[in-house]
């Protein structure tokens, strides 16, 4: 049984049909990639899975249970973490408070403290900035904070929306290294990326979205060598 099963999903904003009949599935501990041009509907798809954008048609099942139409905060509780596009850390809360909010649905205080320490050893720069306001961090640090915050809910599945966007190459490789490590922790990942090459390297399978629909779906290596993908998303001429 797949961990996450999205079936014929439709979602949008008013008259805009951003996602039109998308299906995908994620197996436990697996990393899958979703690639596609700007405006293809990737962000909307993730927001619909998390219950932020209403599902108009289709179903989302998580661990065998339907979560279609469930409020976001309950979906998080079931084990789906989400590091949203644009990072969206809380600018006027300290780094520590941002992380503590990541564990908002947990009550095991001791374990939360240990998890925060672990995040700080993963991203030492966060440890040095614990009492600084989130809004004063650099873009890369904010992305690390967003990842750490999403990890603190102890999710079984993480939705990551363009975690490398606008970051320096050295930070990008650090971020991808951490994402690669999620599998070892038993966390499955849906990775939305503009940086298709790096995403397909990490992922086992991938979907290509075009104007709200799945245009291609295959194993990551197959996708990476597909001429249509190479032309459109990998920048090979």
């Amino acid at each position, binding site marked *: 049984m797949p961990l996450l099963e999205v079936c014929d999903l439709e979602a949008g904003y008013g008259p805009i049909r951003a996602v039109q009949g998308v299906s995908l599935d994620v197996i436990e501990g697996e990393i899958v990639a979703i690639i596609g041009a700007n405006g293809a509907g990737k962000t909307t798809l993730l927001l619909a899975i998390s219950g*932020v954008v209403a599902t108009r048609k289709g179903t989302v099942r998580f661990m065998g249970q339907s979560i279609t139409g469930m409020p976001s*905060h309950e979906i998080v509780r079931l084990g789906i973490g989400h590091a*949203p596009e644009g990072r969206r850390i*809380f600018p006027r809360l300290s780094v520590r408070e941002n992380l503590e909010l990541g564990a*908002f649905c947990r009550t095991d205080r001791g374990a939360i403290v240990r998890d925060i320490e672990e995040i700080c050893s993963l991203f030492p720069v966060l440890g040095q900035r614990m009492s600084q306001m989130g809004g004063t961090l650099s873009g890369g640090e904010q992305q690390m904070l967003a990842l750490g915050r999403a990890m603190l*809910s102890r999710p079984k599945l993480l939705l990551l929306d363009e975690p490398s966007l606008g970051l320096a190459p050295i930070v990008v490789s650090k971020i991808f290294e951490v994402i690669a490590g999620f599998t070892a922790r038993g966390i499955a990942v849906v990775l939305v990326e503009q940086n298709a090459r790096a995403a397909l390297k990490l992922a086992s399978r991938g979907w290509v979205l075009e104007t709200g629909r799945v245009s291609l779906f295959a194993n990551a290596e197959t996708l990476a060598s597909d001429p249509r993908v190479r032309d459109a998303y990998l920048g090979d001429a």
Partner: protein
Amino acid sequence: MPALPPHLAMISLEFFLQQCLIGVTNGALIALVAMGYSMVYGIIGLINFAHGDLIMLGACLALSLVGASGLVDAGPTATWWGVVLLLLACGLFCGTLNMAVDRFIYKPLRNASKLAPLVSAIGVSFIFMNVGLFWLGPADRSFPELVPPTNLFSGDTLQFTYQDLLVVVVVVLLMVALSVLVRSTRLGRAMRAVSQDPTAAALVGVDVDRVIAATFFIGGALGGAASVIYSLYIKTIGFQMGFQNGLYAFTAAVLGGIGSIPGAVVGGLVIGLVRSLASAYVGERWTGAIVFAILIVILVFRPEGLLGRRTREKV
């Protein structure tokens, strides 16, 4: 020390200090009301026009409870307990009413334009006023003097009575409680998260609607406490009291920086002091004009208010 002749009394230090005491006491009351505006604005960006009228309804309840309980003739100990019970009852009443208005009127409009909830709030204000008219009648009503106006200073150069003390003590206690709540509790952290980014808050597992409801409850409960304090201090209530008091408190919230709770306190104190000094030294009928002239000048130079944030953070 010989008393100054009446036409020079105004320039004495005692007179000035007296006006400051009056100003601080009034300002504390304004601040308590302003916090209700600021909390709701901080969390959903709504100017809750009905807040002043909510407080008027709290005063209606306080008057009815005092009438029904025979508190007026009780001894001093019973009276103090009675005041505590009044604060709790009116706090609960106004908090619940405020929360209900959010649930049934503002919440369905959450995704509509900003104007829809604003216009609804004006509507709620009128509805409350009509309920108040029905409850109190058209004439002002006097509120029984439960707390003695005994002066706490010996001599009579300075006046600071138990009534003044009650205002200051209750307001300070509530402010401390509120700042502890916002700064160090789970709910407070969730409130700050929702006010900064409701979607991100939902994505870490915060039940945003519940946090908003709790904010309306707390803001309303502070208003309920303000209604009791107001009744005991001003001792006259009427169905139109919400409008003017709401206006001054809203002004205080904007002056301090709307959305900021310390800002509401500072704004309230500034307006209280300006009002009392202006009415003593310039004349009662000029106070409104002076208060708003100062407001305009401050906002020209600091549009975000005294303690407000200067710019929005870059995303």
